[in-house]
């Protein structure tokens, strides 16, 4: 839009140069061209309008599909159901009938545990793989082979080993969080500029100082990227894992509501999963910005 205004200005500027010298008063009036001097709308306003327009279009499309598409509930019905569900998110009537709050929290707990264990293992492993070429060579084929495997393929192994649904789900989260954590930490270690390491060398810094003052802070942004990717994948995977394992959790809840044929609730679950995933992502983006030294 700014470009457009500029272009117009260029076109119109030569005009106020009449062949005969203009009257002084007339010349003073020339700069006043409000139509072309209007400042462009502030960026946040444009963004807000785009945001609202996007959501409105989505809801309209949804309503149209609901009207002609048969079994899909329309936005109004889902909204009403959501109001009921979120009025009491933390009720508990036995293990198979709990509020959506409990379901989300137990999913988050699984993700947290699995992900925490993956960080405990993956970050030190990533440091070692990044630091020692031989280890990197050893790990490369294993990671290359296992990374593309869907984490859910590991679920039967988890069930076999742990003989219970909950640790098996946590184990799946652990596996899927592990690879991004290892790979990003290792890349971060390899990316450390030689200059920083030269500083350490000319000062003869101890290994501990090199780690705390140079390696760790230099790798931290990469580690956070690994964490972000891991959390994203973990949140995707937990829903599927819980559908298979049952218990309490948002994924299980989706499956349960499918069995009850409460399609409104499935829609609510989809939005809830989306919002939680978005919040996780945003929180880690904030952390990443905090540790991004420019």
């Amino acid at each position: 839009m700014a470009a457009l205004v500029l272009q117009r200005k260029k076109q119109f500027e030569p005009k106020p140069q009449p062949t005969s010298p203009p009257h002084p008063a007339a010349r003073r009036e020339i700069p006043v061209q409000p139509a072309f001097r209007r400042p462009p709308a502030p960026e946040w306003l444009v963004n807000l309008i785009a945001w609202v327009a996007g959501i409105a279009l989505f809801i309209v499309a949804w309503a149209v599909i609901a009207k002609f598409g048969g079994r899909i509930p329309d936005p109004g019905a889902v909204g009403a159901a959501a109001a009921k569900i979120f009025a009491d998110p933390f009720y508990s009537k036995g293990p198979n009938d709990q509020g959506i709050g409990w379901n989300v929290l137990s999913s988050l707990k699984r993700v947290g545990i699995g992900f925490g264990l993956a960080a405990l293992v993956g970050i030190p492993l990533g440091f070692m793989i990044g630091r020692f070429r031989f280890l990197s060579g050893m790990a490369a084929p294993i990671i290359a082979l296992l990374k593309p495997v869907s984490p859910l393929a590991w679920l039967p192994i988890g069930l076999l080993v742990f003989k219970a649904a909950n640790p098996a789900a946590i184990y799946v989260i652990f596996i899927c969080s592990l690879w991004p954590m290892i790979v990003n930490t290792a890349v971060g270690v390899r990316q450390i500029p030689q200059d920083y390491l030269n500083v350490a060398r000319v000062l003869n810094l101890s290994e501990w100082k090199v780690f705390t003052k140079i390696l760790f802070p230099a790798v931290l942004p990469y580690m956070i990227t690994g964490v972000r990717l891991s959390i994203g994948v973990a949140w995707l995977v937990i829903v599927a894992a819980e559908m298979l394992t049952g218990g309490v959790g948002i994924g299980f809840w989706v499956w349960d509501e499918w069995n009850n044929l409460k399609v409104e609730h499935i829609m609510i679950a989809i939005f809830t999963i989306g919002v939680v995933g978005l919040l996780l992502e945003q929180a880690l983006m904030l952390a990443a910005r905090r540790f991004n030294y420019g």
Partner: protein
Amino acid sequence: MDKYLSIEAVGMSFGASQILTGIDLTIRKGEFVTLIGHSGCGKSTLLNLVAGLLKPTAGTVLLAGKHVDGPGPDRGVVFQNHSLLPWLTCFGNVYLAVEKVFSDQRSERTHAALDLVGLSHAEHRYPHQISGGMKQRVGIARALAIEPKVLLLDEPFGALDALTRATLQDELMRIVGQTGATVLMVTHDVDEAVLLSDRVVMMTNGPAARIGEILEVLLARPRRRLALAHDPQFMDLRAEVLEFLYEKQAHKPALKVA
């Protein structure tokens, strides 16, 4: 002439390519020596050999009678691209060096070093919050704070604009005058070399570069940039370095891209 820093018959090759050969140079305590030559002649390599970041494939480097074997805090290095750690403040960057060398008065020494380069006011700023010239000052403060036997500067002002460079050259002269530091500096700036040095070591083109000529600069100190601008002695010295670089060691058109 006492040999404080001596480089004896030093040669350096990386694999089959020989960079330096037969380098002999001794530097007195408190002397300011610059290495000048066309880019790629191995002057930075020579500095890195003294710093201990590289090991010579022939000959040896002695500092105050001791064989140089690897890097150490008896040599303060200022890198071309400042090499400050971005997650530490100016104070933190200098303190990291001080902490390694001294067990007492660490904060005082850090303050003093930053004060010496005129940056007391910016102590708590991070590198990305200060200008390129200020970063290089912090680099100098970090190198000087550990009270090294010799200060090694690797094209320290190469990345700065001309005005900032001039200011920092004057600052460096003042600091060296104040501390009596022994300095070995790599540069490709003829004026800088003549203005700052007691001796200018001119290196031949690589491969297998050696010391071509050594120019004694007997201009009285303290030196003033403006006064020297029209000083015939300064002009002659400058002309001599230029002649060496652009006549005797004129860059022949490269036959192959290395």
